[in-house]
C-alpha cells in the first residue's frame, strides 16, 4: 500500500532580495514499510520539502497525499522528529510521550500503558519521571521518537534527527532506530546529509541536487550483511557510497 505520494512539488520563498526557489518539481512515493532516506548537501531544500509534507509550510505548487488523503495542514497521520528534539521541558518523559494521545482524547489509563510500551521500546525504562533537562542528547531524541511513535502515525518524518549528536551516540541511535522500525513496522521518510547514515538506514535513497532541490537519482539499497556499524566497511556498502558521492560531487565541480 502506498503511504505517501508527492507530485510535482515546488516551493518558492518570496523575499525582498528576490524569490528563492528552494524545491523544484519533486515527485516520488513511499510504500508501506519502506525506509526512504533523502540525502543532499546543506541548503538544498530538504527541510523545506519535509515541512511541506508535514503540513507546516504550504506548497507553492504540487500535491501531497498521505494514505490517500490530501495534505492541507499538520496532522497526527504524519509524525515528525526534529533535529532539536522539541520536547516539552515542563513535562516528564512519560508525559511527553503521552502528549499526542492526550491531545486526541485517549483516556489516561490507555495513554499511560501505550506510552510505557514505547518508552521501553526506545530503552528509556526507569527514566519515565525524568525531565528533559536531566537527559543526554541521545536520550532526548529517544523520547522524541517514542512520543511520535506512540501516536501511531501513517508515516514517520525525520529531519536530521541525529545531526546534533556526537559520533558514537549517533551510531547507537541509528541501530536503535533500525531495530525500533523493524519492531513496529513503521514507514519512514528520513532526511540526512550523512551518506553513511543514509545507506545504513535506507531501503531507498533519494539523492537531491543543490538548490533548487530536485531529485537527481533514486538509489535502491540492498545489503546482504547486517545493517550495523560493521557494514560500514563492506564492499557493497562502499560501492553504494561511491555512487552517491559521485552524484553529489560531480555537481559541485560543475
Amino acid at each position, binding site marked *: 500500500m502506498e503511504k505517501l505520494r508527492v507530485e510535482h512539488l515546488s516551493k518558492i520563498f518570496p523575499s525582498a532580495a528576490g524569490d528563492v526557489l528552494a524545491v523544484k518539481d519533486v515527485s516520488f512515493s513511499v510504500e508501506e514499510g519502506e525506509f526512504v532516506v533523502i540525502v543532499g548537501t546543506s541548503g538544498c531544500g530538504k527541510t523545506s520539502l519535509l515541512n511541506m509534507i508535514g503540513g507546516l509550510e504550504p506548497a507553492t505548487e504540487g500535491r501531497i497525499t498521505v494514505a490517500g488523503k490530501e495534505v492541507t495542514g499538520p496532522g497526527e497521520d504524519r509524525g515528525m522528529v526534529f533535529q532539536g528534539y522539541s520536547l516539552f521541558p515542563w513535562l516528564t518523559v512519560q508525559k511527553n510521550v503521552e*502528549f499526542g494521545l492526550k491531545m486526541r482524547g485517549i483516556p489516561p489509563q490507555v495513554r499511560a500503558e501505550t506510552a510505557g510500551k514505547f518508552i521501553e521500546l526506545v530503552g528509556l525504562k526507569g527514566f519515565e519521571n525524568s525531565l528533559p533537562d536531566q537527559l543526554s542528547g541521545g536520550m532526548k531524541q529517544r523520547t522524541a521518537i517514542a512520543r511520535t511513535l506512540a501516536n501511531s502515525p501513517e508515516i514517520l518524518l525525520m529531519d536530521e534527527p541525529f545531526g546534533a549528536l556526537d559520533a558514537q551516540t549517533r551510531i547507537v541511535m541509528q541501530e536503535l532506530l533500525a531495530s525500533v522500525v523493524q519492531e513496529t513496522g513503521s514507514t519512514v521518510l528520513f532526511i540526512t546529509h550523512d551518506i553513511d547514515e543514509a545507506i545504513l538506514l535506507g531501503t531507498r535513497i533519494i539523492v537531491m541536487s543543490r538548490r533548487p532541490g530536485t531529485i537527481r537519482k533514486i538509489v535502491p539499497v540492498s545489503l546482504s550483511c547486517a545493517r550495523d556499524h560493521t557494514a560500514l566497511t563492506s564492499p557493497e556498502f562502499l560501492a553504494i557510497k561511491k555512487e552517491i558521492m559521485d552524484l553529489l560531487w560531480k555537481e559541485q565541480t560543475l
Partner: protein
Amino acid sequence: MKAIAANTRKNAKILSGISFLILITLWCILTYGGFVTPIFVPSPSAVFGKISEGIRDGSLLRNCWASTRRVMVGWLLSAVIALPCGMFMARSKRFTAVLQPVIEFVRYLPVVALVPLTILYLGIGETQKYTVIWLGTFFQLVLMVCDTVSSVDKNMLNAARTLGANKWQVYKEVIFPASLPGLLDDFRLTIGWAWTYLVVAEMVAASEGLGYIILKSQRFLATDVIFMGLILIGLIGLLTDFLLRLLSKILVPWYKRLGD
C-alpha cells in the same frame, strides 16, 4: 555539588544582609552624627517612633491595606486583560495590526497628565484610583506578554501540531506553560511599577493610604512620616517580590535560570 550550591545561596543571603546594614549604618551616622538636619533626613528613632505609633493606633495597617488593595486591584485588572491580548497579539498579525499602534501611543502618555480625565470620567471614588494604576501598567504589560509569548520555541509548536493538537490545545498545553516563567517575571516587574503609581493614584480625594500620607506630610514637612511611608512601600514590595519568586519555584520548577 549540592553543598556548594547551598553554600553559595547562603553567602548571597549574607551579602544582601550586609548591604542593608551598610545603608542603615550610613543613615545612623548621617543623622545621629549631626551631618544633616532632621527636616531633610529624620533619624531612625524618629521614623520608628512614627511606625510604632501607627501600629498602636491601627492607622499603619489601615493605610498599608488601602494602598495594597488599590495596587492589587488595578494591577490584577491589567494582568487579566493583558494576558489574552498579549497572547493573541503574539500569534496573530491582524490582531497586532489593530492593537499595536494604539498601545504604543498610549504607552508614552504620562499617567499624571491623565488624572484630570480619569476624575472627569470616573469621579473621585475607588474606581478612579484603580484606573490610574491600570493605566500605568496595562500598556507596558501587554507588550511584555506579547514579547514573552513570541519567544516560545517555534519548533515546540510545530511538534505539538504534528502530534495532533488543535489551535486551542496549542495555546493551553504548549504556549501557556512554555511562557509561564517569562510571564511570572513580567508580572513581578509590573507589580513593582504599579507601586510607583501609588502616589499618583492617591493624589485625589483619598483619606487613607501610604501615598496619601506621604502627600499630606509634604505640606507639613513631616519628613519622618514620608520616610515611614517610603520604608513601608519598600517592605511591601520586597514581600511581594519574595512571594512571586516563591510562586515561580512552585509553578515552574523545571525552569532553570542563568545563575541558579
